[in-house]
């Protein structure tokens, strides 16, 4: 049994708080045995919980009392904190972001009693922070690869292939038996596969653009707010008529969290929001083509969030499916802010 029990009493327990608001309340201490208190601490903190490793940040700390408590005492200590500018509270599937008033008693050589009380933080009129990793969106791999000179990317793929191929050839030539052949295959297959995949990923959009011409994929506002309408624009300039199976724009919000570390490290993913917008239902494209589409982000959609091991990333993906030819695909990172209440 702990020698004292703590409780958090909020001035307004039903309230939600915006950045700049003040959280007021009391820490009550019910003492059952004599306690030498090295410190009664109270903190305001934001913390992730769910499938990912926990991330936590303290936004205020106060020492309320130091000294001795006697059995039967009941004490009340006031506290107040100003709510910082985000992130907002969030309830998801793999990821939750929660704000707490946390209090504990530091008892020398003893069990430290503690208590937490959750509060809800919502967006105010000013923009809020989206977590310490502000670039919450996933890296745009295909765009980065497209920006590299084709010869450099092709060379990198060849090098990966050669990494397995050369030693395998040497073993095969020197040994020339079945075991050596099998060992050679073990070396060749993964490196050849990886090299080929890299070359394909790097050159896919370039190949597609031989048919489609230059493709421009833009959004009017990559940093929007829940409830906003995003306008996407796609421009193609095929030099000759080209058949397209379909063109689709997909807007997604995905929770990506990492649990464990080292050999136990594991990434978990959950699609929290997804919406497909068909841009073209298939057929022949002739001359300059211009597609425009709009999508409204629901007001209750999850906002972007980024903290170590805990991310909620928004992205728009354009996929132009060309029959019997590499498709054109690109992901565009978006940052979606919570709607002011």
């Amino acid at each position, binding site marked *: 049994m702990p020698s004292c029990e703590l409780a958090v009493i909020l001035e307004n*327990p039903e309230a939600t708080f915006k950045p700049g608001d003040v959280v007021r309340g009391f820490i009550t201490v019910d003492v059952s045995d004599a306690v030498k208190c090295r410190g009664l601490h109270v903190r305001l903190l934001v913390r992730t919980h769910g*499938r990912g*490793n926990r991330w936590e940040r303290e936004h205020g700390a106060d020492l309320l009392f130091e000294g001795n408590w006697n059995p039967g005492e009941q004490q009340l200590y006031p506290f107040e904190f100003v709510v910082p500018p985000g992130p907002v509270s969030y*309830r998801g599937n793999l990821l*939750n972001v*929660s704000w707490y008033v946390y209090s504990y008693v530091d008892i020398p050589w003893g069990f430290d009693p503690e208590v937490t009380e959750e509060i809800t933080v919502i967006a105010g009129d000013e923009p809020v922070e989206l977590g310490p990793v502000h670039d919450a969106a996933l890296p745009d791999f295909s765009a980065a690869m497209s920006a590299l000179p084709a010869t450099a990317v092709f060379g990198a793929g060849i090098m990966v292939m050669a990494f397995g191929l050369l030693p395998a050839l040497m073993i095969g030539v020197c040994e020339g038996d079945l075991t050596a052949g099998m060992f050679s295959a073990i070396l060749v297959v993964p490196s050849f596969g990886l090299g080929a995949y890299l070359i394909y990923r790097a050159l896919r959009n370039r190949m597609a653009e031989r048919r489609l011409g230059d493709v421009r994929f833009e959004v009017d506002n990559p940093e929007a707010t829940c409830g906003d309408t995003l306008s996407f624009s796609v421009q193609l300039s095929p030099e000759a008529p080209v058949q397209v199976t379909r063109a689709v724009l997909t807007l997604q919000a995905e929770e990506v969290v990492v649990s464990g*570390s080292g050999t136990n490290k594991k990434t978990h993913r959950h699609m929290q929001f997804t919406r497909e917008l068909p841009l073209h239902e298939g057929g022949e494209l002739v001359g300059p083509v211009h597609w425009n589409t709009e999508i409204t982000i629901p007001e209750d959609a999850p906002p972007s969030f980024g903290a170590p091991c805990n991310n909620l990333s928004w992205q728009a993906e354009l996929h132009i499916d060309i029959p019997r030819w590499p498709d054109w695909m690109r992901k565009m990172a978006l940052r979606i802010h919570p709607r002011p209440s």
Partner: protein
Amino acid sequence: MAGAYAHLNLRINPFGELPPHVRSRLAVANTAPLVEALRKPGTAVQLVGRCGRGKSSHLLALHRELPESHYARLWTDQPPPSALSGDILLIDEADAVWAGTRLRLLRRGRSVAVAVHRDQSWILRLAGFRVLTVEVGSVDRERLRAIVQRRIEFARLGPGPLPGLDDPVLDALLDTHGDDIRAMETPLYAAFQTLQAVEDLTPTHLYGAP
């Protein structure tokens, strides 16, 4: 304010990822004989088991029981901590480094406890220790019940009933995952995400209708 799991009388999903200091508090491990052994200089305790069986939780529980001990986790791609030394060393993933490095690390302590995937008694003896081997992993229905209940109790929001797991659920978890407790966390986490009220989980919550 009611949290995301208040309808279950919980603060958090009990089967989410927990930080090491919390895992050490929740470990279901009989550490008393190991604590006693480690307090005698020249003793090496090796906790042997496959991934997800609770070796790290055991070691963290020992660290909690032995405040004078020093804990370190080793990585394959990082040098071991140079400052690691003391009377009692607790080394997690001790087989992540080369044998020579491991031997030098072991010799820095008067007693050591290591969490390893394979038997390392030869190197512990080479370092001059008496070796006590604990196979971590054997889990039956009762031990699993204790582990699960401790996690759920830790997540408690307030007084009153909590969701529980009945015997068929525990049996289904053991049938599906064997002694891999970490692997059980995935279906349990998902099941708690879908629970609408305080009730006992059934195998259907975990693995769908048969």
